[in-house]
């Protein structure tokens, strides 16, 4: 017994090192599997508060640009309203029961391989896990963690992100992923070989999950090639959204989600 205690005392530095190193490795591995990184995230009282204070100063420098984006969006919506009496035509988002909330990005990263954003809305504003996040230009990501006043968004620039997307001109769909290389392009995988692809085609969200409605713009086709199985395309997409510069966003809640999920889980 004496020897065991002596051993611990003699090697206490190494043992503490080993313990802490293993703890951080565990946290790392956890963060690489989707929807499990519960403990270490920036959507908490302390870091959220600090980020919000700083961004409230930062925001003033972006006002001009934000105004321009808002004007452009208003312009587009007005022209839709005046010119397009039949608003259920091809450009409109598919009908459903969605409610939107606006929020502000208080922290954004895009340089690592697993990127997250932090929003200034949380459970007290009825924002919950698995709500979609978009801007007027297109998709940003999915909320994966919330606290009282803040929410963390799994960005589309995250190698663990999987979002359903499809071609605008046909109904061939695939999964939106990111290879971690450039923050301007994402990859759409599992598009069948039969799909009529050409460079410049528009990609929209597919609406096959209960998160995003169908028809939210994602980007345009930059290039495409067949994967190893020679049956599916891997499509490189230029994003409409400049992910390096995101300010105001909309959080989408699908009011029918519980019903849809209950139905899907029934079998």
């Amino acid at each position, binding site marked *: 017994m004496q020897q065991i205690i002596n051993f611990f005392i003699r090697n206490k530095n190494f043992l503490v*090192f080993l313990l802490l190193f293993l703890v*951080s490795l565990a*946290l790392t591995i956890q963060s690489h599997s989707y929807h499990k990184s519960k403990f270490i995230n920036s959507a908490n009282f302390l870091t959220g508060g*600090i980020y919000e204070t700083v961004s409230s100063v930062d925001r003033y420098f972006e006002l001009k640009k934000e105004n321009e984006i808002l004007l452009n969006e208003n312009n587009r919506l007005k022209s839709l309203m005046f010119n397009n009496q039949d608003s259920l035509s091809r450009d409109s988002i598919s009908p459903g029961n969605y409610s939107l909330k606006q929020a502000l990005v208080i922290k954004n990263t895009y340089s690592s391989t697993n990127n997250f954003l932090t929003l200034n809305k949380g459970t007290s504003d009825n924002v919950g896990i698995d709500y979609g996040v978009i801007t007027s230009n297109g998709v940003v990501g999915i909320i994966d963690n919330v606290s009282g006043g803040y929410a963390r968004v799994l960005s589309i620039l995250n190698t663990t992100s999987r979002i359903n997307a499809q071609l605008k001109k046909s109904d061939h769909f695939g999964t939106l992923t990111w290879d971690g290389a450039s923050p301007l392009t994402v990859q759409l995988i599992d598009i069948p070989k039969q799909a009529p692809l050409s460079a410049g085609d528009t990609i929209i969200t597919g609406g096959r999950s209960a998160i995003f409605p169908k028809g939210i713009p994602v980007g345009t086709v930059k290039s495409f090639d067949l994967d190893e199985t020679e049956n599916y395309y891997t499509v490189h997409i230029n994003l409409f959204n400049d992910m390096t510069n995101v300010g105001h966003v909309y959080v989408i809640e699908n009011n029918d989600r519980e019903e849809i999920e209950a139905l899907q889980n029934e079998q």
Partner: protein
Amino acid sequence: MNNTITQNTIRFILLVLIQALVLNNINFLGYINPYIYILFILLYPIQNNRLLFIFLSFLLGLFVDIFLDSGGVHAAASVFIAYFRPLFLKFAFGMSYEHQTVKIGHSEIGQRITYISLMTVIHHLILFSLEVFNSGKILLILNKTLFSSIFTIILCLLITILFSQKSK
């Protein structure tokens, strides 16, 4: 003694905040960021309690992780270089480390460059290996390690030169 504690506490908080709020928004050429919070580990008094030092390094990394949503990669890399610091100190400063007389602020510039470079490269290598977490992307890891290391080393050297006490 009290002075050292206050100094290190302020350094700890300041470095975490600067890292989270300023340096991570640099994104030079898209992805190159310096990680100068390791200055805390580099400059921590040598004679002090090693157990506490390892634990503080872990805490430092964890705080950066919470700010950056990066799981535990900064904590792992920080703990690692904190534990193996004596090895690098011995390599860089040789005899004077054995006699416990090294003051990093007053050391020769050549020795200081060796010490900072070694610590930074090892730290960044572990950091980016864990962050990318994919052996197929070894080139991306090495690329990120190389460029971020250069950035960090230059900044760390400048800061140690600027803030070193003039007294002899």
